[in-house]
C-alpha cells in the first residue's frame, strides 16, 4: 500500500481524515514509470463538494482511459489541515499517488463559481507553486483553468498558464500530444505555451494585454504574437452520444453532497432565460440517446453500489424521452432497491404522478422557480412560467398529498419596481390559498401548508442579455429584501409562508468578480493574503477583508457593479466566443427592456448563432430551423 502524504498523527487530528487518503472504489492507480503525463485535477473546494461534481468525474475517467496519462484528484484541504500544512510546509498532494502536485506535469483546476477564486490561490500556495504564472519556472506544472468561470477568465488570468474554453472532451489529447512532442524536442515552457495557444479552445493569457480608456473602460487588446488567435471559440462535443462517460465513478467513503449516480441526460437548455449564463454557454441543446442512458444507468449502479440515481441537466422536463427513461428507471430501481432523485421538473399531472412513485409525498417538497413576482417582470427575464402554471401545478400537488412548496425568486432584476417585489408575497399567498381551497379541512395533514419563499440577488453575468445591466448596491438589495418581507407579512396566509434571503455582501463581491477585468487580480491576491479563503462558506466569508483589499488596491466596486454599460462597450470577455453572438444578446437585452418574450429553441429558433456548431436542437427535424 502507498505511503500516505500525511502522518498518522496529523490524520488523527483533522476532521474527516477520509478526505485525504484516496483509495476509494474506482479510483485509478497507475504505474508512474509507465505514464508520460501526470495530471492533477482539482476542484478548489472541500472534498465533499468537489467529489460531487460530474465534470471532474467525466474528465478523470476520460484522461485515465489513456494509457500514457495518470489523472489524480486534488481538493482544497479544509481549514484544519490547511493550517497544519502551512505550519509544517507539507506540499499539497494528489489523492491517488499521495505525491506532491508540484511534481506533476499539469494542474487542472475547474472553476465552477466565482467565490472559489481565493481557494485557487490556496491550492497553488499549498502546492508550493508560485501564485503568478509569470513567476513559474521550468519545473513547475502547467496550470490550466476550465469550467464556466473561464468565460470571463480575466480577473484570474494572472494565476493561470492557460485556460481551456469549453467542453473538456475535445482538446486534451491534442494538448498532451503537443506537450510530449515539445518535451521530446527539449522545448521550454514558453515553447509549449506558444504552441498551445494555437490549439482550438486554448487561451494563453500572458500572450495578450488588456488596454484601457481614460474612463477605465476597455479600449481593446494587444497580442504578443501574430500567429495566435484574436478570438477563441469554445470547444463543444457535437455528438454527445459518442463521447466517453464515467461508467465507474469514484465512490467516496464519506458522505458527499451528491452521494449517488449522476446520469447526464442532455447538455444545454432551450429556454434562454435572460439572467441565466448556463442557458447561453452550453448552447445548443444536445440530447443523449435514451437507450444508451438506460445501459449507463444499470452499469453505473452496478459499478458503484450507490443506492440512488439522479438525472442531470439544466431543464430535465425538456428532454424529449423523459417519460420513457423514467419508466425504465422506476422499474429497474424498484428491483434494485434504489431510489431515484428527481431533478426539478415542470409540475404537471404527469410529473406529479412520477414523483408520487419515487418520493415520500409527505416528506418531499415541490419546487417552483418563478424568479420574479409579476408577469411583467417574468416577461422581462423571459421566464416562461405563468402564475396560472404555478397555481394549477400547486393545486394538483396539494390534491396529491404534498404540503410543502419551495419558491425561488430573484431581487434586483433589471426594470424591477416595488410592485414586482410585492408580487412575491402575493404569489406566495395565492399558493397558500390554493392549498386551503384544494384540500378540504378534514383531509389536511396537521391542517397546514408550508411555503418557503427564498430570494437571491440578481448578479449580471457575462454572455447573457443582462451583461449590460447595472447591478444593485448592497443597501438597495437589503431594502428590497425588506420590502419582500413586509409584502409577505401583510398577506392573509403569512403564517404559512417562511421567507429566506441570501446574503448581500457576497452577492456584490460575486458581481465584481463575474464582470471584472485584469485589474481585479491584485484585489483577489490581496484578499487571499489577508486570509480570505472558502468565501462560499458563510462562516469563513470576511467581507471586511475584501473591502480593505479593494480600497488598498484602489479599485472601485461600483465601476464593476452598478454602472450601466453602453451598447458598444468592450467587455473583458469579448475575445471569447461561446457560440451565441453579441448581436443576439443585444437584441435580447433590448427586447427585455420592452418586456417582449422570446420563444424557446424548440418553438422557434432565435438565430442566436450557436447553429454554427452544426449539431443539436438547431438541426432537429421536429425542432427549429438552423
Amino acid at each position: 500500500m502507498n505511503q500516505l502524504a500525511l502522518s498518522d498523527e496529523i490524520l488523527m487530528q483533522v476532521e474527516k481524515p477520509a478526505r485525504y487518503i484516496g483509495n476509494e472504489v474506482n479510483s485509478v492507480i497507475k504505474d508512474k514509470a509507465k505514464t508520460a503525463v501526470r495530471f492533477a485535477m482539482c476542484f478548489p473546494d472541500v472534498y465533499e463538494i468537489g467529489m460531487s461534481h460530474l465534470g471532474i468525474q467525466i474528465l478523470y475517467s476520460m484522461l485515465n482511459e489513456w494509457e500514457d496519462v495518470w489523472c489524480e484528484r486534488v481538493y482544497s484541504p479544509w481549514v484544519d489541515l490547511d493550517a497544519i500544512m502551512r505550519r509544517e510546509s507539507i506540499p499539497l498532494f494528489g489523492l491517488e499517488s499521495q505525491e506532491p502536485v508540484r511534481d506533476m506535469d499539469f494542474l487542472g483546476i475547474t472553476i465552477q463559481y466565482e467565490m472559489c477564486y481565493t481557494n485557487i490561490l490556496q491550492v497553488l500556495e499549498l502546492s508550493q507553486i508560485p501564485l503568478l504564472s509569470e513567476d513559474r519556472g521550468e519545473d513547475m506544472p502547467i496550470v490550466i483553468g476550465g469550467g464556466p468561470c473561464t468565460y470571463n477568465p480575466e480577473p484570474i488570468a494572472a494565476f493561470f498558464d492557460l485556460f481551456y474554453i469549453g467542453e473538456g472532451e475535445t482538446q486534451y489529447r491534442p494538448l498532451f500530444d503537443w506537450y510530449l512532442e515539445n518535451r521530446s524536442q527539449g522545448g521550454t515552457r514558453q515553447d509549449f505555451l506558444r504552441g498551445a495557444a494555437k490549439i482550438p479552445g486554448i487561451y494563453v493569457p500572458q500572450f495578450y494585454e488588456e488596454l484601457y480608456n481614460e474612463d477605465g473602460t476597455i479600449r481593446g487588446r494587444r497580442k504578443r504574437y501574430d500567429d495566435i488567435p484574436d478570438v477563441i471559440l469554445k470547444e463543444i462535443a457535437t455528438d454527445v452520444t459518442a463521447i466517453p462517460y464515467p461508467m465507474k465513478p469514484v465512490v467516496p467513503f464519506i458522505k458527499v453532497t451528491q452521494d449517488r449516480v449522476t446520469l447526464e441526460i442532455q447538455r444545454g437548455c432551450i429556454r434562454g432565460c435572460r439572467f441565466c449564463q448556463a442557458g447561453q454557454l452550453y448552447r445548443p441543446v444536445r440530447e443523449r440517446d435514451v437507450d444508451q442512458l438506460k445501459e449507463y444507468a444499470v452499469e453505473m449502479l452496478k459499478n458503484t453500489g450507490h443506492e440512488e440515481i439522479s438525472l442531470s441537466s439544466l431543464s430535465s422536463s425538456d428532454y424529449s424521452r423523459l417519460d420513457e427513461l423514467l419508466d425504465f428507471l422506476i422499474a429497474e430501481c424498484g428491483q434494485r432497491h434504489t431510489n431515484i432523485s428527481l431533478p426539478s421538473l415542470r409540475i404537471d399531472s404527469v410529473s406529479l404522478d412520477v414523483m408520487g412513485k419515487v418520493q415520500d409525498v409527505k416528506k418531499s417538497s415541490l419546487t417552483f422557480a418563478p424568479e420574479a413576482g409579476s408577469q411583467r417582470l417574468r416577461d422581462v427575464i423571459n421566464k416562461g412560467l405563468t402564475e396560472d402554471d404555478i397555481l394549477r401545478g400547486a393545486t394538483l400537488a396539494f390534491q396529491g398529498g404534498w404540503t410543502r412548496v419551495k419558491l425561488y425568486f430573484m431581487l434586483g432584476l433589471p426594470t424591477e419596481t416595488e410592485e414586482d417585489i410585492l408580487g412575491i408575497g402575493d404569489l406566495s399567498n395565492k399558493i397558500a390559498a390554493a392549498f386551503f381551497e384544494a384540500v378540504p379541512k378534514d383531509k389536511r395533514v396537521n391542517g397546514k401548508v408550508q411555503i418557503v419563499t427564498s430570494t437571491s440577488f440578481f448578479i449580471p453575468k457575462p454572455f447573457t442579455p443582462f451583461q449590460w445591466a447595472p447591478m444593485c448596491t448592497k443597501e438597495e438589495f437589503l431594502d428590497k429584501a425588506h420590502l419582500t418581507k413586509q409584502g409577505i407579512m401583510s398577506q392573509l396566509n403569512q403564517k404559512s409562508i417562511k421567507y429566506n434571503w441570501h446574503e448581500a455582501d457576497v452577492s456584490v463581491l460575486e458581481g465584481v468578480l463575474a464582470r471584472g477585468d485584469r485589474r481585479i487580480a491584485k484585489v483577489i491576491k490581496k484578499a487571499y493574503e489577508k486570509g480570505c479563503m472558502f468565501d462560499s462558506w458563510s462562516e469563513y466569508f470576511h467581507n471586511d477583508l475584501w473591502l480593505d483589499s479593494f480600497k488598498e488596491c484602489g479599485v472601485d466596486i461600483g465601476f464593476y457593479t452598478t454602472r450601466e454599460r453602453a451598447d458598444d462597450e468592450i467587455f473583458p470577455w469579448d475575445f471569447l466566443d461561446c457560440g451565441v453572438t453579441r448581436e443576439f444578446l443585444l437584441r435580447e437585452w433590448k427586447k427585455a427592456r420592452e418586456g417582449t418574450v422570446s420563444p424557446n429553441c424548440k418553438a422557434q429558433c432565435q438565430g442566436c448563432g450557436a447553429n454554427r456548431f452544426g449539431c443539436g436542437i438547431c438541426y432537429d427535424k421536429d425542432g427549429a430551423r438552423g
Partner: protein
Amino acid sequence: MKVRIRFAKYGVMKFIGHLDTMRFFQKALRRAEIDVKYSEGFSPHQIMSFAAPLGVGIESFGEYMDIELCSMTSPEDMKRSLNQVMVEGLEILSVTILPDHAKNAMASVAAASYRLHMKEGAFPVEDLCGKIRAFYEQEAIFYTKETKKSVIELDLKQGIYEINSDTDGSVRMLVNASSSGNIKPSMVFEKFCQFAGVEIPAPAYQVVRLETYTDLAGEGEAHRFVPLAEVG
C-alpha cells in the same frame, strides 16, 4: 438466511469511521450483487448488524457483521465475490452460515483481543514482560473516565481478562468488549504507562484488534470465549 462475515480492516482504511464502513459495505454488497434481504417500508435498507464498532485509527483482523440474505450459492462464492469489490485494506476473511436462532453479532460480543506495538522501534520500557505482570497483579486498576456530563471512576481490572507481552515486543490483551462493559485498549495502556513511569503518546503506537469473542459460559460459570465466527 443469515450469514456472519469476518473481515479485516487495516492500512489506510483504519481512518474510515464505523458509520462510513457500514456505508461502504452497503454499497459493496450491491456491487457484488449479493441477494440481501431488505427491510419493508418506503426507503428499504439492508438488514445488517455489526459486532463491535472499531475506533478510528485502529486496525483489525477480527471484525464481524451479520447480514440477512434471500438466497446464496455458497459461503465460498460469497467470500470470493465480495473480495472482488473490496479496496486495499478491507478484506473478507470468512463467511459462515448462522443457525436461525443465533443471536446477532452485536448482542453476542463479549470480549476482544488486541495487539499494541510501537510504529517505529520497540516500547521504551525495560523488562516489559515483568512490568506488565506487576501491573496486572495490582488489586485494582482505577481509570477516571471523563465524559461531557460526568466523571466516572472505573476499575479496569475486572474487564481485563489477560494481558502480557509477546516475543516480538508487542503487548497483547484480552478485554471486555460487551456493550455494557467495553474497555478500550488505549485506556489500559495509558494506565500501564503511568504504572511503568513512561510517556508514550497515542500516535506512537498502533492498536490492532485481533479477534472478537462471544462467551459461551452459562450463568455463574467461568468465561468460555470463542471467536464470533465459530458460533453456528
